[in-house]
């Protein structure tokens, strides 16, 4: 990455530019890998690219950035993902 000297509003790519957005979550998606049929619907549907896809098309959830929208659970045809309330912080 080359930094330009001229001072204007130029921004550089960074994963987590807004920090770990997983902290926004109220409900968290929980994946039951036994039920997963590797259809990849959750992977392609995630607005946050926080469902990682492995070489064998199995998936895992990246809780660092998942904002907890629940689209993955809603899209899963075999109910392999369910939403569970996050434990309240500080308790």
């Amino acid at each position: 990455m080359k930094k330009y000297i001229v001072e204007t509003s130029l921004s550089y790519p960074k994963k987590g530019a807004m920090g770990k957005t997983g902290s926004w979550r109220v409900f968290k998606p929980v994946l039951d890998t036994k039920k997963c049929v590797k259809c990849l619907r959750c992977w392609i549907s995630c607005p946050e690219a926080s469902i990682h896809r492995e070489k064998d098309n199995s998936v895992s959830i990246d809780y660092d950035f998942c904002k907890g929208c629940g689209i993955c659970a809603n899209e899963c045809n075999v109910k392999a993902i369910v939403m569970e309330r996050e434990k309240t912080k500080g308790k």
Partner: protein
Amino acid sequence: MALKDLPVDECLLQGNASCPGCPATIGLRLVLKALGKKTIMVVPACCTAVIESLYPYTSFDVPVMNIAFEAAAAGASGVEAALRQQGRTDITVVAWAGDGGTYDIGLQALSGALERGTNFIYICYNNQIYSNTGIQRSGATPFAAWTTTTVGGKTEFRKELGEIILAHHIPYAAQTCISYPEDLYNKIKKAMSIKGSKYVEILAPCPPGWRFSMDKTLEMGRLAVDTGAWSLWECENDVMTFNGKSKLLLEKKIERKPIEEWIKYQGRFSHLFKPELDEKRLQAIQEHIDHLWERYRKCYVKI
């Protein structure tokens, strides 16, 4: 093209500033999977300007130029001309704008760029409102929908921008929806393969803007297609083809769902259902869509 065939690489990075359940980021991921790294994006004022995140960082791993609200297509024309002079015709120039920046304030620059045959892809992600400024009406907002500037419901029907685009007779124009990832991906890929001006519009149901639960973003898109409120089509060199479910609807191979099946899930239409049923406006919406599809059939069904 199956989901497993879509590339793994992401050009929209995690941890960006989008709302949970955001349709724009779902669309951006798909669009950037199709476009790849050899892409320059021009973005006018819209939610994406926020999604990029805060200076000095960005969530985009391709070059992005933000430009004034009405200027996306003109800015992209300049980028494209410069790249052509530099012999960099391997780079795809993309304008990515919302419906406010496309239907309304940016329409003149868009029309100009299309008329000049600018070699670029103009993508409108249509969430039917000015969402970035906090849900105001746009030319794409449907009749009777609540927005902060149409408090009792919009009194006009939305314009058919697709038909305005078609009047430019560009080599490729298409409508798709984030709920159909293969359709969306394929349309961007096809647009990339064609020289000249390309226009792709993506329906992008917005949870806070339409007032529905954020896990239902894709479902709202599918219901829009099922009810005929939105249609999937592509027009290549003036040959129109309806795609997927919209094709089946056009050919009457499946029944169009009543419009209520789409709007009843959206808080922006809740005043049509309570305190009492507003049959008059519900009927007006349904008649409008019926009329639209009659026209589609007259124009596009081959006898």
